[in-house]
């Protein structure tokens, strides 16, 4: 497939950012369910086109279930249950356009592509560095938690001490990691003011233009209906 030739992703990170922005506008202007549904069909077909069939089916099913709950199950169910779930379901539906494009983006875009896109869009270097280190740190936290849990389950620790036994090592190692990480970063010239380059190339292609045009049509639709 033609889109596979380019560093593996279906759409450019910048296109994703634009689509995310549009999804936010759609979500928070709350014009009509039809626009929202149209958006979801559009994004979901993009997911299908990119070959992630499982993901596409999962999300569309989830959306159908939410619609079913909202319009058929909840109106028919006892008032107590309805009041408990109505907010949850309603908000889930409202947030769905953002969730969908967001998770598509997470699946498609690697951190380095994202960083490169931010550089191309002239985000400040400070923001880029702190953002990329933060993202880099999430899997590390996961690892830390996993090890700390291991250590805890082998020691006899009173339940009153459990939280402490979890948090103290986590915070201590976070502090140590932060220090070591920045030492390694500065010795590899991260502070260099020169314009940074990248091994990757980002290029907009047909998919990106098509998606941008369709996205903008949604935007226009939102404003016309307003």
């Amino acid at each position: 497939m033609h889109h596979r030739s380019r560093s593996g992703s279906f759409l450019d990170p910048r296109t994703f950012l634009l689509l995310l922005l549009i999804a936010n506008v759609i979500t928070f202007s709350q014009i009509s369910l039809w626009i929202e549904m149209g958006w979801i069909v559009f994004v979901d077909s993009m997911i299908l086109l990119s070959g992630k069939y499982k993901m596409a089916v999962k999300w569309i099913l989830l959306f159908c279930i939410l619609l079913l709950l909202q319009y058929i199950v909840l109106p028919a169910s006892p008032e107590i249950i309805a009041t408990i779930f109505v907010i949850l379901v309603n908000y889930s539906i409202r947030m769905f356009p953002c969730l969908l494009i967001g998770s598509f983006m997470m699946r498609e875009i690697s951190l380095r592509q994202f960083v490169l896109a931010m550089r191309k869009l002239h985000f400040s270097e400070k923001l880029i560095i702190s953002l990329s280190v933060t993202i880099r740190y999430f899997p590390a936290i996961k690892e830390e938690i996993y090890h700390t849990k291991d250590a805890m389950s082998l020691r006899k620790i009173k339940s009153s001490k459990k939280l402490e036994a979890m948090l103290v090592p986590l915070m201590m190692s976070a502090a140590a990691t932060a220090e070591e990480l920045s030492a390694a970063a500065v010795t590899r010239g991260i502070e260099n003011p020169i314009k940074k380059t990248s091994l990757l190339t980002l290029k907009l292609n047909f998919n990106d233009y098509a998606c941008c045009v369709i996205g903008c049509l949604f935007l226009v639709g939102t404003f016309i209906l307003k």
Partner: protein
Amino acid sequence: MVSIQGVSYGYESRKKILKDINLEIKQGECILLCGESGCGKTTMTKLVNGLIPHFCEQCELEGTVRIQDMEVASTKLYKIAESVGSVFQNPKSQFFQLDTDSEIAFGMENQGKSKEEMQSRLQNTVHNLHLEKLLGRNIFELSGGEKQLLAFASVYAMNPSVYVLDEPTANLDFSAIQSIKQLLRILKQNGHTIIIAEHRLSFLYDLLDRAVYLKNGILIKVYSKEEFLALSEQDRKRMGLRCLKEEEGELPKAHGAGKDIGLSIEALTVGYKKKCVLFNNISFSAIQGEILAITGYNGIGKTTLIRCVCGLMKQMGGQILLDGKIMPEKVRRQQCILVMQDVNHQLFAESVWEECKISGDGLEDSVIKSELKQMGLLSYADRHPMALSGGQKQRLAIVTAILSCKKILIFDEPTSGLDYATMIMVSTRLKKLAKSGRIVIVVTHDKEFMLSACDRVLKI
């Protein structure tokens, strides 16, 4: 190439870490910094890569450090980074990307190199260091040793003229150390200057040109290669140094499974999913009175195996028996204690003493005191565990494991980064422990330690 003149360094009022150091390093030399833990060798490396004074606040630096014509104290760190590359001890905290390719390119991207140049340097790096198998991987899936090789690759790709290495092999297995040795040899042949602080000396003996021996922050002597290699066994031990040549010798093989006494692992299959089986049908046993070493390549899954033995994960097949009785995971968790490779995960109390009290619940104070004393930690009883040095933390974790009074003690790399004296301290204590009827298993790459402490070995 590198010139250190009259350098003293310390934190405000506290004791000086380095005192009046003078050292001239010529281009293309390989300099070993050695000495006991805490002698100041890591601090020496920081003088050269500029972390001192640029990265350490509230420090007092006297004297000057120059790299060619560049004075370190007045040059920006990124400028220094162009001629000095650093590899540190902890493989976990040296990378910034999530995948290996971009990690190797990271330094070059910071320098604004053109894409073509990056591509070709990336290819060169991977080719010269024989790291083809590292390409295109998720970094979080790499083993500690692989991460360290990746850190080397990333620095190598920047092509600095001076390499500053701070205990780069602390976590590596024999074959990974060999590949690093190979790589250091290539660097040396290409005329790079190498400054390396290390405990493990055996892989360096034919690479080094001079050895700098430090003690308590004072440069005691600079040995020529010939002088250094001619050190008598006695002198070497007195100086607190690990062995200079790879120790010769083999341990007898681990007992087969099926023992009625001790821990018996029978036809164990370990893995995460059906697709990812790390060990198929592995059998061995460990008996009281003996220490069993488990050794094998980085990334082969030793840590996963011991997690399974400890009951932290379920086996996919086979069983684990203690004195002839099958132990399900829960029983294993009650019977086993594990000292992890990174002991930071298991220390959480406010003081060393408190940490021991939690582990040795109900034990007499005198017992705890004697344990701390045997590991040389008694004078630190009031300190916060995190204020200890790496080696001290490691020993504290060993003390807490012993105090837990569990039957099976498993140590994952207990000697990474220990000098000779502490290594002997740990090995003596573990031997006594085994003699007292506990089952001791040690996962290690450290051959010197293995030969001095262990009775049998399981190679996987």
